[in-house]
């Protein structure tokens, strides 16, 4: 057998190993109820409950940010994040949060926001030249 063929086989074996371990390294997206059960680190896809207020008072603690999120199953949970309020948080459409459940709260170590609406949602701002037209119209 040619040396390169042997090496080729070894490389293929390593590649398979790499791919398998990629999937061994993964976890799956979960929800708050699962986080409650498992008590281990989990990635939850959720969205911000915009009706409830979030807590960020830098005068008290610049690294304490708490808010309410609703997961895909509709369960709501208070999420506490060790950091500042991410930019444009209010407008996020989706929050992918990594963290752990402890008691009633979910402690997030990472928050990934998705706000596609920022530039792409077609919300046309309609302003009038003469202000009277606005009043009569909108």
């Amino acid at each position, binding site marked *: 057998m040619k040396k390169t063929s042997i090496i080729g086989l070894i490389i293929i074996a390593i590649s398979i190993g790499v791919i398998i371990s990629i999937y061994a390294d993964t976890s799956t997206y979960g929800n708050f109820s699962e986080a409650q059960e498992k008590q281990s680190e989990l990635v939850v896809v959720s969205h911000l409950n915009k009706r409830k207020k979030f807590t960020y008072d830098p005068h008290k603690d610049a690294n304490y940010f708490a808010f309410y999120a609703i997961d895909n199953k509709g369960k709501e949970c208070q999420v506490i994040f060790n950091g500042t309020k991410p*930019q444009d948080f209010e407008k996020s459409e989706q929050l992918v949060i990594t963290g752990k459940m402890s008691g009633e709260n979910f402690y997030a170590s990472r928050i*990934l926001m998705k706000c596609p609406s920022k530039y792409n949602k*077609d919300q046309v701002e309609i302003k009038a030249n003469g202000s009277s037209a606005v009043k009569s119209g909108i």
Partner: protein
Amino acid sequence: MDQTFSGEHLFAGHAGQFFVVLSFGTALLAAISYYFSTIKDTADGSWLRIARIATWLNTVSVIGIGASLFYIIYNHLFEYHYAWAHSSRALPVYYIVSCFWEGQEGSFWLWTFWQAVLANILVWKAKTWESPVMTIVMVSQAMLASMLLGVEIFGERIGSSPFILLRDAVNLKEMAPVLFADPANYANYLTYIQDGNGLNPLLQNYWMVIHPPTLFLGFASMIVPFAYAIAGLWQRRFSEWVKPVFPWALFACMILGTGIIMGSFWAYEALNFGGFWAWDPVENASIIPWITLIAAMHVMLAYKNSGHSYFTATFLVLISFVLVLYASFLTRSGILGETSVHAFTDLGMFWHLVIDIVLFGLLAIYFLVSRWKQLPITRKDEETYSREFWLFIGSLVLVVACLQVIGTTSLPVVNAMFGTKFTIKEPIETYNKWQTNFATVIAILSGLSQFLKYKNSDPGKFYKKLGITAAISAVLTVGAMLLTGVYSNPMLAILSFAAFFTIAANGDILLGAIRGKWKLAGSSVAHIGFGLILVGALVAAYKNKVISINNSGAGIPVKDFEKTNKSGENIMLYKDEPVQMDKYTVTYVSDTTDYPNTFYKVNYKVFDKDGKIEEEFNLYPNAQQNEKMGLISSPDTKHYLTHDIYTHATAAPQIADHQEHEGHTESEEYQEPLTFEVNVGDTVRYKGGFIVVVSVNKNATIKDIPLEANDIAVGMNLEVHAGEKIYPAEPLYLLKGGNQPMDFGRRVDDAGLMVRFTKINPDKNNLELLVYQKKVQERKWIVMKAIVFPYINLFWGGTIIMVAGFLLSILRRNKELKRN
């Protein structure tokens, strides 16, 4: 009846759309003519002539698209959706260029523009390769043009045109149902749309002007090696294509590499990622084809010099371009959804992008399979002590490294295909863990193979050189680890050894090059750059230190995070209150607002043990108060030769915009008043000073109001003592016609006061004085994060050296081509 609209400038859009369709048609015509020119060798060259004219027309129409789009954006023609969505009137001219490629359509245009430029160079330079190579290039050009078509065929919209009108793209009647219910208003809809959505403030940066064109030139130039490889297989000029493709492949790698580095530097300097590489899927997507093309070049070199590794070289060249298309699919189809912060959203081109990948993938597979038996694959075994053998091994390792990145980045694709829900919890750590291993092997190999000759080398000499270089690198590694403090992790020590090994080995070659073998300088310079990048990235990634640790509560971590023992990385700074942060005394000194940007002046001082200032500098992190996006902050960094101090405001009070709403009422500005009943000679106190009632002026006059016979006007002469200063004030009391009470208060702005004389109480024999104090301004503050990046200049220096190495290699290979 068709609705007519007034005020629209439809000509620019019609012209643009005409050019879009023309560019598609001419690209297709060029591809077909080049195809026939390749397979039918007509004596008069008529197919070739048609193909060249079509290519030339295609270039003209691509420029036409660009000109029309520029005209639309430059003149703020918001009747076009693209101009409305990506620009605004307030935008300075130089950012108009950025608006151009903020959207997907514009970035497709950029790609097709560069491809047209490259096509013209090929027509000029490719000689016997012109017809087959240009066939493939023009197929790609037609595919790109189809992405911009925006034409409906059988109810399916093909592509997305930048010339779609706002009223077609958006249902305006839904936006303002009442206003536009009136047909007269609807016909004049443009008068109601006064400004565009504007350019994303994060992108209002000069990097946004130069980074996308560079990156897209890199992507576009990847088509050339692909086209040459296909042409070589197609025309059965199996080994010929490798030589002319070499400068092209180097060029593509250099430009794409430069584009990626620019993005990385932009992220580090102007965005608040807090680093230079985040393993974001969009970043990964662009670096994967770059790595596979680098691997391809190494095996092409092996093939050219030894005849080995033909298939690997061809395959890697082909797959690199397919991976460019895959990258385009990942970033543009919306599939990354949950995993990336900066991918585009879906424009409805999901399947269009898939077809693009499949088309070029099938083309590659077809030619590889149909020519399989004729490929010049050697049956002979490579020598162990030969350069070609280790080039081959090195390229395979690069491919496996890529596989890890592709595999992980493609998790969302796997999820979409199989309905699974895989994700990675700590993506950055996972990538770093894997890639440090691969990088180690690659660095060792790129040093080692410098000591080997093609075909066969003398093992004795090889081991001698290897031994010396390893010893030198070991010394360097120990030195570097002591200097930087990276010694916690054995894997990191091994990686830094490998990086120094490649620097030392290639440094040896470079010395030889300076002594006369200048030909070899390019690759050794590029490899030294690569080694420096590894050392720099390693130290900066593992030894960067957040110094803004919040230990105001005596090192207590954030409430409820005691378990993870992760202390807060953001620190509160009140104006003029110094805070100790690592060795720095940090003070928020002042701020200046140049709407919409606020720059916070943050002063850093280091004192020596005698209390003298050893080091002092100011940083100006900036926060933009954006109506649409809230607070957007950009960092500022102090650069030293050996380290950087990065500072970024993570939270700041929202600044009320005074220009926007006028007419503050007084009650908004002042606190509830203090009411006093006084007589002449009395003194009343307020927070911050006292007021003396000096006298009463019974013959007071009021400016601009003539007094009538029955009017009684009384002034109260006051002395306001605020600190050391005294301010006079005379509030007035008026009984109009003897029975209508009025009063005229007086503001004492310097003392932050307003005083009113509001009543005369004859029964109590005193006067009523109201003292209003201005609301105390909230103490100014910012929350900031500061990170020290040690030795980051090794990383940036390495990138520049690597690009320089590519440039030297291009010059060398071009010379070789000319000589033949």
